Each structure stands twice: as C-alpha cells, then as structure tokens.
C-alpha cells in the first residue's frame, strides 16, 4: 500500500467530488477515507488514498491533480502520507 493524502480547497461548486473521484477511478487510485466540510462557502476536503495500483508515478499524479484543480479554481495538493506522519507523529 502506498498512501497519498489529497487535499482540495476552494470555493464550493457543483461536482468537485465527482471530478476528483472520476480522476482517481480512471487512474486506479483507491480511496481509503474522505473527510469534507464547507466553511463559509469554502470547500475543504481531505482524502486518504492508496496509489499502489496506479500505473502513473507519484510525480505524474501530483502534476495532473494540480492541473485538474486549476481548471475548477481549486487548490489540490497530492502528497505522500509520510510527510504528515513524520511531522505530526513521533
């Protein structure tokens, strides 16, 4: 398993989750967990995913997700889970 954390932030609009999930499904990235809130009109989502089955490299996925976000006025970060674990867990 290769866990990657995807965060999506931006102004709320119809179809954000659909678009992100479609991309993930097309690239064989499995979603393990989703948490999502809306704070004063701003969409905020964090997904824990498994990218082990994807044929694309971590670099490609990060680039494509960023592009996908730009098309919807969203900021999407796609980062290996280890960076969060090392920073917040001992």
């Amino acid at each position, binding site marked *: 398993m290769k866990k990657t*954390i995807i965060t999506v932030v931006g102004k709320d609009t119809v179809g954000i989750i659909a678009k992100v999930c479609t991309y993930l499904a097309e690239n064989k990235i499995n979603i393990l967990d989703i948490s999502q809130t809306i704070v004063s009109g701003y969409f905020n989502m964090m997904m824990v995913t498994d990218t082990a089955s994807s044929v694309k490299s*971590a670099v490609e996925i990060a680039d494509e997700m960023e592009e996908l976000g730009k098309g919807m006025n969203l900021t999407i970060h796609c980062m*290996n889970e280890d960076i969060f674990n090392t920073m917040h867990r001992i």
Partner: protein
Amino acid sequence: MINMTEASETIKMITQENLDVRTITMGISLLDCVDSDLEKLNENIYRKITTMAEKLVSTGKEIEKEYGIPIVNKRISVTPIALVGGSACKSPEDFVTIAGTLDRAAKQVGVNFIGGYSALVSKGMTRSDEFLIRSIPQALSSTDVVCSSVNVGSTKCGIDMDAVRLLGEIIRETAERTKEQDSLGCAKLVVFCNAPDDNPFMAGAFHGVTEGDAIINVGVSGPGVVKTALEQVRGEDFEVLCETIKKTAFKVTRVGQLVAQEASRRLGVPFGIIDLSLAPTPAIGDSVADILCEIGLEYAGAPGTTAALALLNDQVKKGGVMASSYVGGLSGAFIPVSEDQGMINAAEIGALTLEKLEAMTCVCSVGLDMIAIPGETSASTISGIIADEMAIGMVNQKTTAVRLIPVIGKGVGETVEFGGLLGHAPIMPVNPFSCEAFISRKGRIPAPIHSFKN
C-alpha cells in the same frame, strides 16, 4: 490517521510560511582522484563528480513533487582542493584549472553551487595550501558556481595569523577582480574557525577528510514557520516562548530528516547529517530578524538582540536534535545581512552595526555573514575583523566565519545588489582606526588554555 487540521497545518507551513528544505548537499571525496599529472587529475575529478552526482538533481526534484515540499538547492561539496591538488599543482594557476573543472562538472549535473575549493590551515600553510589561497581571486572570478573556504583557526590549534593576513589581501583582490558585478566574488568565499566537515550550506561547504566516499547532508530552514508560531503566543512568558520555538523546530527538522533519508535511499549514498538551521532568504516572511522582532525587539540590533538570538538558537537545537538521528554542520540560526530582509531593514535604519553583529555571532550558528563594507577598507582592517571573529570561535569552541564583501567603488550609504538568494545590502561602516601593526606580526596565536582537555 492524519486529520484535516494536521494536513492543513503542514500545507500552510509550505505554501504560506516558506517552509522548505534549503539544500540537499552531496559530499564527494576526491582523495581517490589524486594524481601527479594535472591533466589526469582534472579528468579524474570531472568523471567522479559527474558519475556520483548524475542523478542528484533529478532525485531531488522527484522527492520535491512526491512529498510536496520544496527543495530549494541541490549542491555538491568536495574534499578540500588544496589536499587533492597538492602533488599536481606547482603554481596558483594550476589550481585555477581545477576550479574550472569543478565549475564544468557542477554545471553538467545541474547543481547551483559546488563547495570545497578550500584549504585547512589552522596551524600552518603547506606550499600547496598557499598556492590555493593565492589562486582564489582568479578561481572565483573565472568560474560561476565554485565556492571557496579557508579554515584559519581552531580551538585545538589556535589561529594562523599568517593566513589571516594573507586572506585580508585575497578578499580585497577577489573584490577587485569582480568589481563589475559589485564584488560578487567575495560572496563565494568564507573564512572559518572550527569549520565542520559536514556542513551542507554554501559558501562554506566542503567534504571533510574524516568523511566516507560520499554522503548526503541536508540543511533545513523555516524562519517563517517559527515567526508565525510565535505570533500566536505574543505577550506570553519565556517558558511558553521557548516551548513554541522548540515544537516548531521539531516539526521542521522532521521534514528534513524524511527528505534526507529518502534522498539517501534513492541515490544509494549514506545519510550524513541534518543541519538544524534557520536559514533566511530575502523573501518577505523568511527572515530570522523578523523572529527577533516577534520575540519583542523593535529592530534586530536593539539592546536585547544577543539574548533573544541566544534563546532562539538554543531552542532550535533542542527541538531539532530529537527530530533527527544525526545532527551536524553549522546547526543554529543564520544571520546573513544581505539575505534577510529584516536584517537589511535594521542595517538601513542604523539599528544594526558591525559591532553588534559581532556580538550576535557569539551565540548563533556562524558569523559575520554577507556584510557589504566600503570598497576602500584596507586589507589589514579586513584581516583584523577576521582575527576578531576567529578569536570568538576559538575561545568559545564554536564555528565562526567571515564572509565580507568590500564593494569596490562604493561607500557607506550606498546599496549593493547581488540578486537571487544572495539578496541586497546597504554598505555598513567599518571602524576607521588601524590594526596594521597587529596584523603585520608573523606566526600564530596559540590555542587557548581550555583546549588542553586530555
């Protein structure tokens, strides 16, 4: 599992507070390149560097993307060239050819600096050490990415005053040779006392002789993150202040440790050390001086600055040490004037003087760093400033360094622009009284009494 608050905190540190890994530096030993034939030596050096570091930059970029953390610089440090070139170089000009080779090799692999055009002369200079030192002005003016350093003192050996005197002249000559670019050559030359073997930061990085064949050293940064954390505890007591710095330094360093281990694994080169540093850049919000202001000073340089810096430096180390398996290099807060917008502001308004900076170097990571001084400053005065700084390092058993830029053709009140990470700086006044007779004395200053610990 990581929650949304923690994920947002990390992303905010990176996107808004300039958290980055400042440098991945690959140390490469050139001892096995030694040959008495200069051409062969140059060939060996070029081949070894371009082979060992072939994938350094691409690996750095991959890690950067995969973990979402910027890795600002990828660099190389090599064995001090005075040792490597000892048997082949019969003149300063011979050494300059090696500088040219280092420059070509560095550009070939795509790193932005290569350090190690160095000599270690804390007790005395060999003939080849002196050739190398005398070649520095030509080497730095004829190359783009080569960095040079000379270690002229240590707590164990004392200070080699002959080298200090010579370096005053060499710094002036380097300034003259690069005067068209505001004496930029001097920004690539550091004079050290107690230089560490595993420093990943330029311009002073070299791969010490105590090191293995190759190693990965990483320098972390994050003044903006510390500043933002301190904004949340304004007015609180020192305990809260120190705890906040410590916790933040821990988080920042853990990221460095992760990147270092990953780079080491992917490149197949052992992990050396993490340099626990707060390294500023000229970018707004990436300033060590701003942290000092957040602690409670109107400007860096105000009374209380040395105490605030001592506290900051110590807490950064305490927080960072637990986050990393091996710590080394220069570890602490850097106070380069031209590379820190808060320092520049303080110098411009007159809050920060050369003498106050000297006091600050007693309690921080390095020394008098990236300070522009009038172009007419004499060689003996520069040597005097170096000697003072070396004495602080020698007596306090710490690394100190001097990177002064006498800007030819400019005086106090004028500004110098180096560009990029090197920033810009107001030219600071230097004490006008002479130390000529002191600097003219030959020989060395003996090691201090507390160096005899055996």
